[in-house]
């Protein structure tokens, strides 16, 4: 039956995360971006909420709830607080979820306990490459068996690189298939350089060079069976689309409230059709994008392949985020251009959605 309401349990999670985003994340968003520094206390608090652990393997301390719908509900709410902080909070899932889904028992035992441990421990995924021709399904980074080891060569960017993590999951082509490899950060030949980008200021990311990085054959995610990188990317795209909805909603609310507050020519600017219709369009497009995200997530949960739906949802959500955050800057006028107000940061973050591909997972 067609239904547009989360379960009671999901609604409880949404309410909790929404409060957390409003009370704990949002107040830190501006300073975190300006100082380029994550608020550690917020990561710790979020860790205690157990949002990531919820989706990890039960046998290793996770909650075993692999629902993508739950995942997108959480991702939207966190990103509504702040995208960079949300991606940091969710970063353990970048290694944790693929290991839960595809990992061998030894891989699970190695990776998961730290992620569900008493303190926050970040994960990381190296997928994107610094080239506009980048094809996520056919990265140019290559993995080759050499003796009993794999040798990885290539160049990655937008790799989340929080202080607390120790592994990075590297996506590389092995012969004609993309596969994933669990690489300890301190492996010889792996050089990480901090990045500065248009947005996501608070999230530490790096470019990495993989110069004949050697890992044992057991580092291949899923062992001999390998893993399905397509599925990882589909999940990532849907998760990111959910965060785009959250960012858009944040921008929308700021613009709406400002427009009702700010007077010009003797009346709130929201009483002008040019502003009011812009705000109406924002509301429509945000709801539309959210429903596309929900449907794609629901499809994942039903066990179907969701490549097409992930593409539709992520393209649409990326476009909506761009337009809505740009619109919020516009509604705030001069103040939209000033970093004391949030819209410009939301807009810079939103400009990346066409490139982020998979900076989080659900």
């Amino acid at each position, binding site marked *: 039956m067609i*239904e547009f309401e989360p379960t009671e349990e999901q609604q409880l999670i949404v309410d909790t995360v929404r409060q957390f985003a409003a009370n704990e994340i949002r107040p830190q968003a501006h300073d975190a971006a300006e100082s380029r520094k994550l608020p550690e206390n917020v990561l710790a608090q979020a860790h205690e909420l157990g949002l990531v652990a919820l989706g990890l393997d039960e046998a290793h301390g996770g909650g075993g709830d692999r629902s993508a*719908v739950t995942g997108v509900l959480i991702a939207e709410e966190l990103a509504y607080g702040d995208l960079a902080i949300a991606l940091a909070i969710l970063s353990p899932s970048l290694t944790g979820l693929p290991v839960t889904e595809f990992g061998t028992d030894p891989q699970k035992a190695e990776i998961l306990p730290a992620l569900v441990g008493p303190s926050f421990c970040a994960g990381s995924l190296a997928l994107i490459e610094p080239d506009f*021709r980048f094809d996520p399904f056919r990265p140019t980074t290559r993995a080759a068996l050499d003796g009993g080891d794999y040798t990885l060569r290539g160049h990655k960017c937008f790799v989340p690189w929080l202080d607390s993590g120790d592994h990075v999951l590297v996506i590389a082509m092995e012969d004609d298939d993309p596969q994933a490899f669990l690489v300890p950060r301190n492996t010889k030949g792996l050089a990480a350089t901090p990045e500065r980008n248009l947005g996501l200021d608070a999230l530490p990311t790096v470019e990495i060079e993989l110069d004949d990085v050697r890992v044992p054959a057991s580092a291949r995610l899923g062992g001999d069976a390998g893993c399905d990188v397509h599925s990882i990317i589909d999940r990532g795209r849907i998760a990111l689309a959910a965060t785009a909805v959250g960012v858009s909603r944040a921008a929308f609310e700021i613009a709406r409230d400002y427009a009702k507050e700010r007077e010009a020519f003797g009346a709130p600017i929201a009483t002008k059709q040019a502003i009011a219709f812009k705000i109406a369009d924002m509301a*429509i497009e945000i709801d539309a994008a959210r429903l*596309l995200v929900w*449907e794609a997530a629901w499809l994942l949960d039903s066990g179907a392949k969701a490549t097409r739906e992930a593409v539709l949802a992520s393209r649409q959500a990326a476009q909506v985020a761009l337009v809505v955050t740009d619109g919020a800057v516009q509604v705030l006028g001069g103040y939209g251009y000033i970093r004391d107000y949030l819209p410009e940061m939301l807009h810079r973050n939103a400009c990346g959605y066409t490139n982020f591909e998979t900076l989080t997972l659900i």
Partner: protein
Amino acid sequence: MAISFELTDNSRCARDFYRKMAVEQMRPIARRYDVEEHALPTEWVDYYWEHGRKGPPTDFSTPADGMVQVCIQVEELCWGDAALYLRMPTASLGGAAVGSAGTFKGDGPPIWGAMAITEPGAGSDTAAIQTTADFDGDEWVLNGTKIFCTNGEGASQFEGGFVVVWATVDKSAGRGGIKSFVVPAKTPGMKLVGLEKKLGIRASDTATLLFENCRVPADHLLGSAKVRKKDPSKTGDKGFKGAMATFDASRPIVAAMAIGIGRASLDLCRDELEKQGIRIRYDAPRCDLTVIERDFIDMEAELQAARLLTWRAAWMMNHGKPNNLEASMSKAKAGLAVTKITQKVVELLGPIGYSQKLLAEKWMRDAKVNDIYEGTQQINQLIVARRVLDYSSSMLR
């Protein structure tokens, strides 16, 4: 409850039933009645009345999607042909008015329903209605001119027809004075004075009706005759508010109509591309995408976005949730999305898209009406804006 996009068996069954009807009964005659403007599509009317209107067998012991199922049905029929859909012998929008606003039950099932709202001087501004209804003896006497009455020919001229006429019983009361009246076909004083020649949906009749001392019995007023002078939209009054509730019910249906046309366009486009060996690659890297691929993917996303907004508005009705905001959202989105989709398909198909050999050009013409009737794009944006800004209609005009 849990978020779900799975159709019930009943909905699937309805979808398949109406899709078959669309393919077999509507598509073959769609072009003909586009060209023969104003001709009554007799074979379709007869078929629908005899075989179509009862719909598929419904198993009421299993779950149903309610209004969502209605939207699915409408989408399928309009995928077949939106103009023929509008030319069905049914209460249609008029029926929705009777159902949502009132208490009146006619003698037997009404088969040709029409709403008579718009006047030459009042488009979306329904409060400016000039048609009057005066109580005289025990009858209402209607006087005025109504334009853009969809199905107005059938409803005013054919046996079993009825027109729901919006009129004011008290001009000084503004919106509070507006009531709706059921006028059976052939009632003396109701005259069909013209049929519009239109851009699209040419098989659907769009009538101008003249009311000259047209008398109907007292109980043909829908709802209460009481005039609320202040803030009628906030009261339980069935007049203006009833009319507006009609829109909350009908806008998702109009959105579903648009979506049916949009899907027809996209399906044709995909077929024509595939004939030439072009398949849309959803997993191509962005820098390799062709214009056709990207446009197609964006159109699919827009159409599905409109569909989901529409289903949500319909689903809210199932649960008795007020859906004024969501109904307008779905209408605004679907109208605009489908206008763009049908225009883009004409463009992508090149010379054959512009030719009348295919139906793409017809669907572009048909689709445009969805941006206009049941509240223009602008009116629906206005309603959405008022809701999200929490502004009254006097704050945001």
